[in-house]
């Protein structure tokens, strides 16, 4: 008899489970060694509470009602529940606070068949340290944890989610053009971006060039040298991250990417994405979210990273297949 399960969910059988456990076990031991204690939070939360963290993610959450008519939602990431935990259970604790997790999250999808709606995230949150020390610690630990998980070729992309917004402000681009331009960037539509920039009034040739070329700047430290004008100041933060990672001997694992944006709205500075050349999709991402904890009543700077454990598994299998 075949009994169906909802699309985007799946059963994990022993062979796969053993490999997934080996991967998450390796990552967990690295996190624990570095002082990140594992936490777990309820799958179901009050929607009102999750909404405090991020308004835009709300649409992607599965919802239900409890007996009192309160709206409950399945968590769509672990960062927001951990922000709640910090404000509630660590209200007086002296920072820094370090947490890791291995937990499922759920998101609706409009892509239909095959796109996962339930996924296993392994990640870490570092609460207290500001830029660039926090970023360097999270990035170095992510790279080390993926080493432990058996990957060999992984790299981390680092950008600044506020960079393009600041550039638009610095170049006096009309305010009503900001959102459409940022949407082009977030859709990775560089043709649309170019067309919109060309149509802008009262912007000089050099400024246009900067607006179109900035998202194309990605690579090693040389990228940060090539960013001039109003961007030069903004990439100071990325330079500082580079220096700290170079001290740890990890600079060559990092790709600076001035066009990198992440969908979630709570990021306030650096944003991260994790790649492996063996697969065509990112393995996870993260960034700095200095305002999120304040929305729960404990204003502290923080940054973190979330990896999709199943994607890490796929990347490992693909690396092995390449030999």
């Amino acid at each position, binding site marked *: 008899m075949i009994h169906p399960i909802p699309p985007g969910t799946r059963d994990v059988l022993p062979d796969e489970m053993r490999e997934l456990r080996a991967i998450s076990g390796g990552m967990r031991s690295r996190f624990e060694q570095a002082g990140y204690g594992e936490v777990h939070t309820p799958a179901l939360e009050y929607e009102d509470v999750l909404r405090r963290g991020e308004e835009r993610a709300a649409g992607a959450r599965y919802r239900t009602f409890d007996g009192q008519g309160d709206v409950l939602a399945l968590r769509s990431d672990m960062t927001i529940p951990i922000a709640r935990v910090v404000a509630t259970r660590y209200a007086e604790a002296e920072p820094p606070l370090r947490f890791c997790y291995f937990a499922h999250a759920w998101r609706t999808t409009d892509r239909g068949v095959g796109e996962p709606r339930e996924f296993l995230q392994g990640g870490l949150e570092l609460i207290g340290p500001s830029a660039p020390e926090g970023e360097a610690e999270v990035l170095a630990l992510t790279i080390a944890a993926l080493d432990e998980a058996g990957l060999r070729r992984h*790299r981390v992309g680092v950008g600044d989610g506020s960079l393009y917004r600041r550039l638009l402000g610095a170049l006096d681009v009309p305010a009503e053009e900001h959102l459409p331009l940022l949407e082009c960037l977030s859709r990775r539509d560089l043709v649309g971006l170019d067309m919109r920039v060309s149509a802008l009034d009262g912007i000089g040739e050099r400024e246009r060039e900067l607006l179109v070329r900035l998202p194309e700047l990605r690579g090693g430290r040389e990228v940060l040298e090539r960013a001039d004008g109003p961007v030069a100041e903004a990439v100071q933060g990325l330079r500082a991250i580079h220096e700290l990672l170079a001290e740890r001997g990890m600079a060559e694992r990092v790709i600076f990417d001035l066009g990198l944006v992440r969908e979630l709205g709570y990021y306030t500075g650096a944003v991260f994405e994790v790649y492996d050349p063996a697969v065509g*999709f990112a393995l996870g991402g993260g960034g700095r979210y200095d305002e999120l904890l304040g929305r729960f009543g404990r204003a502290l700077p923080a940054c973190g990273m979330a990896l999709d454990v199943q994607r890490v598994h796929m990347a490992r299998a693909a690396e092995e297949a390449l030999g």
Partner: protein
Amino acid sequence: MSSGLTIAVPRGALFDGALDLLDALGVDTAEVRANDRKLLFEEAGIVTMRPSDVPTYVEHGSADIGITGKDVLLEQAHRNVYELLDLGFGRCRMVVAATEGGDPIGSALRRLGRVRIATKYPRIAERHFSETGRQAEIVEVKGSVELAPLTGLVDGIVDLTATGTTLAQNGLREVEEIEVCTARLIANPVAHKLKAEQIDAIVERVRAR
């Protein structure tokens, strides 16, 4: 010579333009031109496929970059790929068309409150009518769309037209333009980061043309 990248090349209307472009970039396409049925050309780093499959292969990373029409990208707007360049060739237009004489679309909307539209591009059609505040019932067809209004299946169609000849020959006329579509260069998001030098080399050479 190979570009060091795997390139998804569309067969069909964009095929010649795509191969001419690759020749100009120094990618050897002789073998591709000589083989009608072969699909994978490892030496040149080229895979050939129908245009609507290009975003699928590029999104997955089976191809690093690809060439396809803007019409395909609009229809598959959910694909996670970079749209890098407007390549300029393969120019055509996505239009709404209806039978000549009278105003079947306006009349359906006025009397029935909704219009029936046949198309091979259901997402583009859906979006266009919804953005212009009109209720449309989209009928997806796989073959010649021009037939649908002639047999009374629908009130109008959304389709791609280059010269308008096929429309005219079937007694149809364009009533609205939705979008001008040309060939685009797209890239896998991970390749865009990890193979930045090779991809930028191609982008720069296309821009310099």
